[in-house]
């Protein structure tokens, strides 16, 4: 344990003692999974680490914590490269399926202004439902083929739906249901678990090294990290969803990535989104 504390580093250790409590596995099956407490500790850590960053600004990742990056971002945001995808997404969202229904018929509030509620835990099916999963379930329900995840039309529809939720804070619910709590816990464990040849966990970069450089890049704090999705990454020259980023990040640490919408990724998205409750949706976004 002492070795682990030393490895984490001073700044992280100071506020991170709180987070250490999250890393230790439950002592017994009876130990309560307490997402609310986790969330408080998580947000406190980042607010203390970046005292000059407003809560909503965490949605902007590296741009919230580095001036030179922010300036480039502001220039690019004058005319964001995701504009084409956003327009495509609106068209796709509004185009009826072969059976005459539209996405609006599948979603609450006709699918407008709801992105901040995803993922949610479906108590009937006992699974975490992300927006992307819901989009494809909607398509299948109406006789359409599911869309490939990560890119293209799926990312475009995400972009449109996210844009209708701009300004609405993440409002993820974890019902008092053992299965929901278990899914949340799985997501949390995934986040803190090391993987891959490089042996990094999500936390290695996005907690311990948040705001610091990984080669030439500035690492985004984990708080609010999903609030700007889907993103147009200059690196990709195209849009990508949360799945695309999870998969590419896992591959970057030389770990074998999971399939898009794998249960673990949905759980991870559930955990990360819940941790960011209160951070306003800012998607679609741009990134380096």
């Amino acid at each position, binding site marked *: 344990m002492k070795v682990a504390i030393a490895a984490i580093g001073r700044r992280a250790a100071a506020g991170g003692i709180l987070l250490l409590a999250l890393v230790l596995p439950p002592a017994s099956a009876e130990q309560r999974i307490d997402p609310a407490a986790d969330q408080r500790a998580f947000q406190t850590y980042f607010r203390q680490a970046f005292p000059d960053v407003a809560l909503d600004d965490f949605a902007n990742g590296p741009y919230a914590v580095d001036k030179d990056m922010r300036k*480039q971002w502001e220039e690019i945001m004058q005319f964001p490269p995701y504009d084409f995808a956003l327009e495509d997404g609106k068209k796709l969202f509004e185009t009826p399926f072969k059976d005459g229904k539209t996405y609006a018929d599948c979603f609450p509030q006709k699918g407008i202004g709801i992105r901040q509620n995803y993922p949610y835990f479906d108590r009937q099916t006992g699974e975490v439902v992300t927006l992307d999963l819901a989009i494809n379930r909607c398509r299948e329900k109406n006789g359409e083929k599911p869309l490939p995840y990560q890119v293209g039309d799926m990312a475009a529809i995400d972009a449109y739906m996210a844009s209708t939720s701009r300004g609405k804070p993440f409002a993820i619910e974890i019902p008092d249901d053992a299965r929901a709590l278990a899914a949340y816990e799985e997501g949390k464990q995934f986040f803190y678990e090391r993987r891959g040849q490089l042996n990094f966990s999500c936390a290695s970069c996005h907690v311990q090294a948040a705001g610091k450089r990984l080669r*030439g890049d500035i690492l985004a704090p984990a708080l609010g990290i999903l609030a700007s999705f889907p993103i147009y990454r200059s690196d990709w020259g195209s849009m990508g969803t949360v799945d695309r980023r999870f998969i590419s990040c896992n*591959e970057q640490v030389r770990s074998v990535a999971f399939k898009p919408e794998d249960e673990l990724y949905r759980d991870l998205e559930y955990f990360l989104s819940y941790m960011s409750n209160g951070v306003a949706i800012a998607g679609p976004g741009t990134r380096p």
Partner: protein
Amino acid sequence: MSRIIIATPARLAVERRLVLQILGIGSLAAMGLAPGLVPRAQAAEQSLAWPKNAFAQKNETAALDALYEKPIVVPSDKVSLDVPEIAENGAVVPVSVSAALPNVTAIALLIPENPFTLAAYYPIPEGTEPSVSCRLKMAKTSDVVAVVEADGKHYGARKQVKVTLGGCGG
């Protein structure tokens, strides 16, 4: 095809423009000049051709010579060049140039460390502000050079932009 050797290239160009304007001649091709010549006066005309030769050059001097006939570029703080210190991504580097100079007729942006030096060239017609913003690709750490042509003279500014190997690319 002959050139009046007595005058400096800059003065020659100004005089040529005045002559053209007075004569009301549409293009230099009409005057029977060889197509290889890239006269600065063309900036005053409507029908401009993509400067193929300039875009094919692989160093700063050659690119500028192809555009401006061996210009003498004077560094000037009247040319404002806005670029990031460290590019967030070498594929998309926001660059803004503006010149606090009268009678600007062209702005060129060059990236000496790129495979082809000339990145963009903007002939500025009268009535258009001598200011442009765009996004450029940089192969590696390099200066970004802006060369502004005003009243036949050339003014420059340069700033280095660091292009690093990203850690988060995938």
